[in-house]
């Protein structure tokens, strides 16, 4: 007996929507309403935790921007299947039909990027970026390494997400950039971001951008700070007009 809606959708998918094209030749379920419904269920079960229920991104990027940024169905299919190196996005061994259904769903909710071009001066924004942000962030190989690389940021994050990241960075911190303080047996305090951790050890990048591994037995204290290392740029620090300029500059960064 079919119990769950999800299973029912799968059965519909397999019974009535056979694959008609090869994996290389585009999405066989493109625009297919049944497949899109199945893809939405799959999305909720497997992708929403990182990419958000609305696909606007949490620790994973905003998926509604992908097609506007110039991707293809084949590329998205491959990314789901093979994962993304250097990130938390895993690979998937799901059947091809399911992955195509996912692609069809995400494409169906994709939007044009929200950056409107009538506010802010990108040249001023770039100056703000150079004086304030490059200490921790890199663009095209220039800048700091403590925070995420921003070379492609406009292709993977919406304007709303960027505003939140700047005004309230600790609201949501990407995996690999969560602040930690280590205290050694000699009382030395080392601050950085956690790259990986297990029961016995932790690997960080410290505030001098140095990769450091520590055995926990050698530490006096390990403090996971539920916050970002990035300071909060409230309107007192960065006015709304300056924020608009900065966003205008960031909107040009598409890798």
């Amino acid at each position, binding site marked *: 007996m079919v119990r769950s809606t999800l299973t029912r959708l799968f059965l519909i998918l397999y019974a009535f929507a056979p694959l008609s094209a090869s994996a290389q030749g585009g999405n066989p379920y493109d625009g297919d309403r049944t497949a899109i419904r199945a893809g939405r269920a799959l999305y909720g079960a497997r992708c929403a935790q990182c990419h958000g229920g609305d696909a606007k991104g949490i620790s994973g990027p905003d998926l509604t921007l992908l097609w506007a940024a110039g991707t293809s169905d084949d590329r998205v299919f491959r990314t789901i299947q093979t994962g993304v*190196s*250097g990130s938390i996005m895993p690979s998937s061994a799901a059947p091809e039909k399911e992955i195509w259904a996912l692609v069809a769903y995400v494409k169906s909710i994709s939007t044009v990027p929200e950056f409107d071009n009538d506010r802010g001066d990108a040249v001023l924004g770039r100056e703000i970026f150079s*004086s*304030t942000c*490059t*200490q921790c962030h*890199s663009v095209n*190989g*220039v*800048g*700091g*390494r403590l925070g995420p*690389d921003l070379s492609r940021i406009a292709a993977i994050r919406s304007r709303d997400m960027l505003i939140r990241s700047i005004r309230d960075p600790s609201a949501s911190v990407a995996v690999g950039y969560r602040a930690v303080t280590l205290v050694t047996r000699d009382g*030395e*305090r*080392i*601050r950085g971001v956690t*790259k*990986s*951790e*297990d029961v*016995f*050890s932790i*690997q960080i*990048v*410290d*505030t*001098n*951008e*140095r*990769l*450091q*591994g*520590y*055995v926990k*037995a050698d530490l006096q204290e390990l403090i996971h700070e539920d916050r970002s290392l990035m300071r909060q740029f409230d309107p007192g620090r960065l006015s709304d007009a300056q924020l608009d300029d900065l966003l205008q500059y960031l909107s040009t960064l598409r890798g």
Partner: protein
Amino acid sequence: MLLSRYLTFGKFMLARESRPLMRFVVIIMLALSTLSPAQSVAQDADTGIGYEDILQGLSDPSRWLTFSGDYSGQRHSPLDQITPENVHRLVPQWTFQTGTTTRGRGFETTPLVLDGVLYVTGSNNYAWAIDARTGRPFWQYRRDLPDDLTYGASAPVNRGFGMLGNRLFMVTLDAHLIALDRTTGNVLWDIELADYHIGYSSTMAPLVIDGMVIAGISGGEYPTRGFVDAYDPETGDRIWRFNTIPGPGEPGSETWPSDGDNLARGGGTTWMTGSYDPDLDLLYWGTGNPNPDYYDEEREGANLYTNSLVAIDASTGTLRWYFQFTPHDINDWDSNHVPVLADMMFEGEMRSVVMVANRNGFFYVLDRVTGEFLLGKPFTDTTWAREIGPDGRPIILNDGSLGCLPEPWGGTNFMPPSFNPALGLMFITARESCATYVPQEPDFTLGRNTSGGVIWIDRDQGYGALRAVDVRTGELKWEFLYPSPTMAGVMTTVSGLVFAGDHQGNFMAFEASTGENLWHYQTGSRIWGAAPMTHMLDGRQYVLIPSGTTLVAFALPEDRP
């Protein structure tokens, strides 16, 4: 705000400045500007190593900064915490798993280590920064490779990084050279070495010398033309290219037919990291087989500079001298080996030599200043040639018509040997095999394999051995037999140990003078192409070996839970 801008600018300048004096000035300025009351006490900013650090070789025990450990290619470590007396207590400390398998080959890398972090490349162009204490990762890089690789698909391997400043350099299966940021693994620049569609790939560990990244190319089983390139570490701009196959009318072209287009696809690939003499400013590099490997109807002549050792002037990329081990090769006996440089007494005189244990089964000693042939003695059962004549050319005994010959994988292969200068012994992974060659005219299509032949190998007659060869005489001092030909590299230490591996997965330690086996560990996969490395960390000596899908680190046991 002003201080942070200054610091940012200073770090930017430091990353870009390679001149030692200017780096010193910038560092002093940064240091003075950051003097402040104690806040979070952090260690110095991580500016990475310069050429002068690589020049120090293995003298800093915590480091391994280039493929062979240093520019000499000896792979001989000065570490002596692990000795013949205590090596039997060596135990694994951690295992790192790559999560990627290698079709038909092995995990061939040599990790680099700096400040407690290992920098490791893997198959399928994966790469990692790993905590040397625990084997846990900091970052992973994986290249988005095209679906239509040619040679790269049959050998999806990589032998390691080059390192300079905050950059790591790696070659790729689609024949690119890339620079990664050492802290993040992000790509800083990416340039094409050659068009992979033709048959090119790249798998070797780049060699960093002063102001240059040296890279070689693979693809000798395809209609390719080999080269050694030098690139600017900051920008990826090419500084020079040395073609191993001469152009029409160039010196060496007389060893090819004057008509025909073989020069454009002559082979002579350069896929093992060479060695370097900074005083002579010479790069020593091995070259591979002519193409087609076995079918020689249309390439009469010695086919320079295939199956050779070339000495390249590093400033200009021009040839100083060459020595050809196997003229007009028809057995695919590439000379892609690590050349081993040494200064030693040879026949009563102090000599600067380069030594090569060659795929053709002979051990060679050459004067590395002039290329003069000093010694050529077999270290395997070399039925194909009786001896090496005084001019350095082999005197042919068996062209195949008198029974089997060593198989294409040769009497040894690319896996690094090691040299113990105090004992005057070269340790070679030797392979004994019996094969019959049947040449066939290949289809000369770009992107198609053009080896031109079929090889029948008699597996029952094959075996392997770790052999210790006296470099002054070429005589065998001792051997340790393996049940089959193996592909593992060798490392030695000053305490008189030899570390080696076999095709059945054993990683082993031997006493260097006698060959007595002192320790072994089953890694679970044939040790293929990789040679061990070693370093000090927290007062303990670690020995590492890549095998299959794992990297294992060993040390003497500690007295703690």
